């Protein structure tokens, strides 16, 4: 349904929240946005994330990130059913202290793109971090369900990684209740 009527929602909210518009909210089939507030300064969080070599410290299923030239990096991630998933990521936007956007290069295992934004939170709260992911679920709807059950679906992964990012930045640790040999990397 095209917007023939003027919307009166004026607030700065992402299309994924609009009723019936999640599908058009991004270039791929599955789109989601997730926000978390972290009690650290915006610049510090941006700088930590922008050095992608830091990301495996809290991204549990990322096996390796190899920095290539010109904002490109090769990612190897544990995928559904224990099979490794690989792609090359390209930074498409980089506004220091504010925003990093990326896109998976054609030819990789998962076609996706996304961005992360850092905004000052209201006083005493630190920084609001928003992550948007747009991707094609592996092998259609059935694949998406399977991936979700296997807890590897990108949207679920992103939610968990944001929690871990917050834990690491605020407490210095990634929270775990597992025995040492099963703990996520910290």
């Amino acid at each position: 349904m095209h917007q023939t009527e003027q919307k009166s929602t004026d607030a700065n909210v992402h299309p994924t929240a609009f009723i019936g518009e999640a599908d058009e909210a991004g270039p791929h089939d599955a789109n989601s946005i997730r926000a978390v507030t972290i009690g650290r300064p915006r610049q510090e969080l941006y700088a930590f994330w922008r050095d992608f070599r830091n990301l495996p410290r809290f991204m549990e299923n990322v096996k390796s990130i190899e920095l290539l030239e010109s904002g490109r990096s090769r990612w190897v991630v544990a995928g559904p059913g224990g099979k490794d998933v690989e792609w090359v990521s390209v930074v498409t936007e980089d506004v220091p202290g504010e925003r990093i956007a990326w896109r998976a290069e054609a030819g990789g295992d998962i076609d996706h793109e996304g961005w992360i934004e850092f905004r000052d939170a209201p006083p005493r709260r630190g920084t609001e971090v928003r992550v948007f992911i747009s991707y094609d679920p592996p092998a259609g709807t059935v694949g998406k369900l399977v991936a979700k059950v296997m807890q590897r679906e990108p949207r679920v992964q992103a939610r968990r990684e944001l929690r871990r990012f917050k834990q690491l930045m605020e407490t210095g640790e990634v929270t775990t209740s597992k025995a040492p040999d099963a703990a996520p990397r910290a």
Partner: protein
Amino acid sequence: MRALCWHGKGDVRVDTVPDPRIVNPRDAILKVTSTAICGSDLHLYDGYIPGMHSGDVLGHEFMGEVVEVGPGASHALKVGDRVVVPFNIACGNCFPCQSQLYSACDNSNPAEKADASEIAYGYAMTGAFGYSHLTGGYAGGQAEYVRVPYADVGPLKVPDGMADDQVLFLSDIFPTGYMAAENCDIEEGDTVGIWGCGPVGLFAIKSAFLLGAHRVIAIDHYPRRLELAKEAGAEVLNYHEVKVREALSEMTGGRGPDSCIDAVGLEAHGFSPDNVIDEIKTIAKLATDRPHVFREAIMACRKGGTVSVPGVYGGFADKIPIGAFMEKGLTIRTGQTHTHRYMARLLEHVQEGRIDPTFLISHRLPLEEGPEGYRMFKGQQNECTKVVLKPH
């Protein structure tokens, strides 16, 4: 090590399990010297709490001796320190912790465990010891040893010369009763009505007097509990014998208690999230919570008064007298205990002799007899007021 493990409804056993180890820098390992069975443990025992896996180690009220400290906590604790540990886990760094809302810590529930309670409640529950994977799947303290995360924040050092029995209840039930009473905003001349004379209710009675209550009226049906409540200074009502609201009205000259504490909580039906949650394997279709006491507290409380709810609820409730709540202008205050906020202060009350928590202990058993302890605590609620296990 030996540990008390959950294996299903009515099935707890002492098993040999791997010793806990330091995982994160701020961890410590405790040798447990005393640990208690809580009324909430009975919900686990009765199979009402989802997110339990066979083999989970129980226990959230415990204390002991530090045997290992990670580098991130060594500024606060050293090997040999005797500490009592709060039942919920708080990082100390997040906004809630900084605001002393420790039971709302953002970070203590592991990321992969947080989904279930986020779906059920809108926000993930805070981590706690030995209380299902909803609260993070942490091994509990009804064991010989336990891993304590954020050990620079939680554990409270025990002064020399104090016995375990004197301080063990700082881990949960004493702060819980105290916060319940504090939440009543007790003022001069106030009468506090307290439903439930289990451990939390009994500590709430004592705390209410500490905080200046003029009178406390306590309600239960177990004679032994009413006796303890009376010994704590309350005027007692057995709800099998009297019509509670009528009695309260008469006793307060028609006003109603100025504040009412629901120290009963959900009755026997357990947590009942709205949707079946993918990750939770044990949930079937559960009935809604039965909030008899909550309803009665709202109806009995004086206009403009406060209803304080330490009693645990998990899901949804029908027929709440929300009209009475609104038209009488009540305040409802509730939440899991912000244990860390109270422990030092309450330790001082014990040291100064204003409260002796040992009154509550009816049984002391070795850890190996833990299963019998559960059976007793569940089956003999009149005689058995609190079971303390000694793992060493």
